[in-house]
């Protein structure tokens, strides 16, 4: 009973942490745009949180840069269980145009495990909403 309550509340109000590991800002402003009145991601109970210790879902943008690698791992470890990572944008998926550069390790999944991928360069706010919603739906079945 208590477990069911916890699971219900997790699904109804997932808190997100926005993490930029070297993105070009485009996906980042689109994520913020998704939280503002036109798209309003908050109606799904999603709340943007400032510190990893409060977050359930990490929304990661940008390719993993060499400099950010250790920080990415550290931030991932700070998020309490159960945690989910959503890779947003082509760079976070594969490295996109930066692929092959000396300072780029590739997508986010080269450094931390990823649960959902949202493609687009940059992603549209509606795609972000769809991605987060799909992730939440998939969790419902578990």
């Amino acid at each position: 009973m208590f477990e069911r309550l916890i699971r219900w509340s997790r699904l109804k109000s997932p808190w997100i942490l926005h993490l930029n590991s070297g993105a070009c800002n485009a996906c980042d402003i689109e994520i913020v745009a998704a939280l503002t009145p036109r798209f309003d991601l908050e109606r799904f109970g999603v709340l943007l949180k400032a510190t990893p210790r409060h977050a359930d879902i990490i929304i990661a943008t940008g390719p993993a840069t060499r400099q950010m690698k250790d920080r990415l791992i550290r931030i991932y470890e700070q998020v309490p269980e159960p945690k989910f990572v959503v890779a947003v944008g082509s760079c976070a998926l594969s490295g996109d145009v930066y692929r092959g550069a000396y300072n780029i390790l590739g997508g986010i999944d080269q450094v931390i495990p990823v649960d959902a991928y949202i493609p687009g360069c940059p992603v549209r706010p509606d795609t972000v909403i769809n991605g987060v919603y799909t992730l939440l739906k998939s969790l419902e079945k578990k």
Partner: protein
Amino acid sequence: MAEFQVPIGPQHPALKEPISLRMTLDGEVIKDADLKLGYNHRGIEKLAEERNYIQNLYLTERICGICSNSHAMCYCQGVEKLMELEPARRGLFIRTLVAELERIHSHLLWLGIAGHEAGFDTFFMYTWRDREVVMDLLEIISGNRVHYSINTFGGARRDIDDLQKQKILDGMEVLRNRTNYYLNIGVTEPTFIARLSGVGKLTKEQAVSLCAVGPTLRASGVPRDVRKDDPYAVYAELPFEVCTADSCDVLGRAVVRIKELIESYKMCEYLVKNLPVGEIKVKAPRRVKENEVISRYEAPRGENMHYIKSNGTDKPERLKVRAPTLANYAATIEMLKHGFVADIPLIFAAIDPCICCAERSVTLIDSKTGEEKRMFFSQLRKWSIEYYTKKPKLTGVTWPF
């Protein structure tokens, strides 16, 4: 009182990008500031040497997502100079139109962020809602909300039809009304002005000697704007004023940006109404003969500079990007000195930092004990709002309109 250092970042949701700031404090007052960069370094300049000119157009566009057109257009102009190519006039008009629409979206975004950092979240939501109007226009013109890909060597990639023109004019009307409303907020909301006024002082002399650019420089009373001083594209024939403010603080920077918004609406309307007929692009050669060029462009944040060296092949030998945020770092450190810890987010946000452009976190260090304290930017923001709630309200400040 012992001095100590406080680190901020590299991960801070307030600014959406990784940078590390290291502040040396004496109690509440900032004694010194230091920046640690490199978290967002991707190696774009090196990557550009391995790709041909057309491919680089898409790469330079992805230097930054907010001023994507700035970098692409700056690069494009440089390569056109190397190719000795005269772009199509209609193409230039469309390019300039997208450049101004981008400035509108960027300034509205900044106004929202400034409101957010000052603890005025309603303002943030308002500006971001209105920003969607211009985002829609950009989508109508280019097919994408952020990376427009409108530039190509010799002109523009997409044409504008009458229906689109009408939509742009309608959009400008809506935005003009909204911007006038924001101007009124200045008159009716004394707390907002009191929070911005006198924060992050940068005198005219300091601004010039530290080579500040863009609205940061213009807010210190220096009328310097590449669009006026060294006109590119069709700016030479556009009717617009260079906006300045004399208050030399964050309030001045907000005023400059609001004024620039109004100028941009004027420019967009002129561009749409006077769009010449003809082709949108001319054919460009594939190879570029050996030469070098510096291309200047007034991005929303200030002067953007691209240096391109060609060697006779279809790939550049060297591409160097000097983004406006990088030019403003020296001035930012000066602005932070003698300020309060609670002002860091606001001062830092006031230069409209674009870390991915300049490639940027805050560490505060106690100057006597050397003790370090790491702080998330968002915690700092929350703390600063609380700090100012307790302080007595600044009175006698007026909105300079």
